[in-house]
């Protein structure tokens, strides 16, 4: 049996290899103002929000759920943080920025809790339960920003999305911390076991005494928190909050990243490492398309096509049918021999 990271890493390597052949400068990294710059660093930096959202999404999908509202939560938290800062007298005051962060993350957690309660408490199917917030959330974000794009000028807030630490983008460290926390919580405590159990066999889990409702609520809550942090990074990066477009379609990219990473939409076993690589694949793909100068009007088509290929390569039944065709075609003479005999 191959390691579960075999295909994700393989695909990522292929994408990077393509870039190497197409334009070796893709791999060049320069030092400017004490920070590293280059396409690879960009991928990490711009991919950070997607990685965060995907990590949260992984745990939700592992419980056989799905969270369509992450994009809206990204928009809401960004809007909330920017609103809080824009109301302050000194936008650069550390206290104000910390307050903004805490308020908006609390809001993100509350929204995750709302999703969890709808799914676990009210028994609504996850896709519908989170669709509610996906649709309503955009409206809420608009409400917070008053229909405008809120622009702020706070270097401290901007640091979350555009700052550098030890020559690397600060957002990478946020991803690392969240990833490490998720790994610790799921692999060093019993939570991971419960998540996999509930996602795989909800009835059997309940009969084993697992409080499946609490597990479900916890994963949606965590997913909300992850989306919230992603919202801070995205709005910090551009120092503004756009209720309409921030985090648009993030839910779909995140689901894709999770699936590419090897976690099944049927729930059960999940692979956080695979998810992170899945997110990197998607971001690398986006950057590659941008760098290779594909006309902007067809970038989405190209992206969809590559995603289709990736999914086909990962599909076991598709690979088998390919192998089968290949093998049966190899011996055309065999048929003939039988025919004549």
């Amino acid at each position, binding site marked *: 049996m191959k390691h579960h990271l075999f295909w994700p890493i393989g695909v990522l390597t292929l994408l990077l290899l393509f870039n190497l052949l197409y334009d070796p400068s893709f791999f060049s990294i320069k030092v400017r103002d004490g920070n590293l710059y280059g396409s690879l660093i960009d991928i990490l930096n711009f991919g950070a929000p997607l990685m965060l959202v995907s990590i949260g999404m992984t745990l939700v999908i592992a419980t056989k759920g799905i969270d369509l509202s992450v994009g809206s939560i990204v928009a809401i938290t960004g809007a909330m943080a920017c609103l809080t800062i824009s109301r302050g007298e000194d936008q650069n005051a550390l206290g104000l920025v910390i307050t903004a962060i805490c308020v908006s993350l609390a809001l993100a957690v509350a929204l995750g809790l709302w999703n969890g309660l709808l799914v676990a408490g009210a028994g609504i199917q996850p896709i519908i339960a989170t669709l509610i917030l996906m649709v309503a959330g955009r409206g809420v974000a608009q409400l917070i920003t008053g229909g405008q794009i809120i622009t702020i000028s706070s270097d401290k807030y901007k640091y979350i999305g555009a700052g550098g630490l030890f020559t690397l983008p600060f957002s990478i460290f946020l991803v690392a911390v969240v990833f490490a926390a998720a790994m610790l919580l799921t692999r060093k405590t019993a939570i991971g076991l419960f998540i996999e159990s509930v996602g795989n066999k909800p009835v059997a889990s309940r*009969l084993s005494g697992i409080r499946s409702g609490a597990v479900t609520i916890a994963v949606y809550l965590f997913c909300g928190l992850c989306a919230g942090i992603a919202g801070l990074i995205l709005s910090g990066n551009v120092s503004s909050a756009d209720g309409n477009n921030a985090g648009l379609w993030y839910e779909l990219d995140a689901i894709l990243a999770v699936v590419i990473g090897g976690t099944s939409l049927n729930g059960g076993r999940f692979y956080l490492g695979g998810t992170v690589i899945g997110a990197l694949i998607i971001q690398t793909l986006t950057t590659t398309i941008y760098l290779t100068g594909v006309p902007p009007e067809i970038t989405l088509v190209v992206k969809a096509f590559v995603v289709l290929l990736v999914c086909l390569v990962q599909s076991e039944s598709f690979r088998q049918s390919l192998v089968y065709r290949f093998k049966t075609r190899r011996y055309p003479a065999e048929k003939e021999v039988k025919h004549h005999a």
Partner: protein
Amino acid sequence: MEERRPILHMHDIHKQFPGVKALSGVQLRLFPGEVHALMGENGAGKSTLIKVLTGVYSIDRGHVEMEQRRILIQSPQDAQAAGVSTVYQEVNLCPNLSVAENIFIGREPRRMGRILWKQLNRAAARLLEDRMHLTIDVTLPLQSYPIAIQQLVAIARALNISAKVLILDEPTSSLDRGEVSQLFGIMRKLKNEGLAILFVTHFLDQVYEVSDRITILRGGEFVGEYAADALPRIELVSKMIGKELKELESLPRSAAASEEARGELLLEAKGLGRRGAVEPFDLAIRKGEIIGLAGLLGSGRTEAARLLFGADRSDRGVLRVGDNDSIHSPRQAIDEGVAFCSEDRKGEGIIDDLTIRENIVLALQASQGWFRTISRKRQSEIAEQYIQALNINPPNPDQLIKNLSGGNQQKVLLARWLLTDPKLLILDEPTRGIDIGAKAEIQKLVMSLSQKGVSVLFISSELEEVLRVSDRIAVMRDRSKVKEMAGEEMSEGRVMQAIAGGGEG
């Protein structure tokens, strides 16, 4: 015997599945104008036979005659063309289409491609009224009617398509008494119109209420064909189970636990019941006692056990375990030391994607909560220990449980519960579908547990097994507890009489 010819005659039917002989040498005769009950315990081959008749399975040997002509049924379409229609337990229609649409789906009256709705609705209403004595609004969606009505609609549809032979597979299992007698009224009427009805059920009372003749299968083999009024209940049961009555009477229970050996009261149910699942029953379980719960499939054994575990909510009566008298969820029951191995091992027992090790520690870890984690090392130790104690094969804690055989999966589930150190272990059909060696190991384990002071509620369809392990036996029939016996009283004959019920004995 009168000079009648069967409308349907199945001769010497054989059907082999990989590793299992599902049917060997089975025959079945259906006459026009009769209700014929097909009886047999689980795994007797009833459903295989029906699937052969409806074209789902092809047969390896034997042949089927319809009106003295050999026919070949290779697909459900063939069956329908031959005039064999089936109505299954779960109504197989589209719940969100109207009643009329359901009856005529695929056969709508059309003119120039347009469906003639008025004609369709009128025809459906007339059909239901004439054949089912049913006057309902046929334009409402099917799901707006109770299951009983849906079933009648399904029957009407089957008859309307083509039917000389109607198969009713467990039609009464989700109906209440009134609905059952309504269905039986229809069945009698159809019978008098000359239809041959094959009726499959687990409820003995219903067999005698409506059937003319009975065919019994056991272990894939044909046991016999009998006139219903010439076959006493007790004999029916003994033929289904495969024990002659005389043989049974001579097998009295030898040893019984002495009165003083019984410990304190552990669990007490008073008037516990749940509408539509199990009638109110009383049950007391003492420390270290093994209670057998006997009864046919569908008699309410499982439903009763689920109430005791809090897996289903009771809607009447009281349940007290230890000092706790408000148990409404498995979590609470487990906290009081109750453990439950479901009969549905695949659906409600094992967690497919997890390893043996993870499956074993699951219940204990669930009791300990999220953060008091059992370390990986400790988990492996525990798994190794139980793999050895219960002889689990393959002896690799990191093997996925779905790759294990049924018997070994069952042992893993037993290990899961033993690890929680239960006071009461509820085992629902723990030995079903597993090989004889594993069966004996599990029985031995149950008895040794009771010596250590663990109480066991042992549910099984195999009387012999129940008698061997139990100190006391409660018998269920038709969703109620009908008898409780202990010590000298316990014999296969007596238990079987209680299972069969009725006037005999």
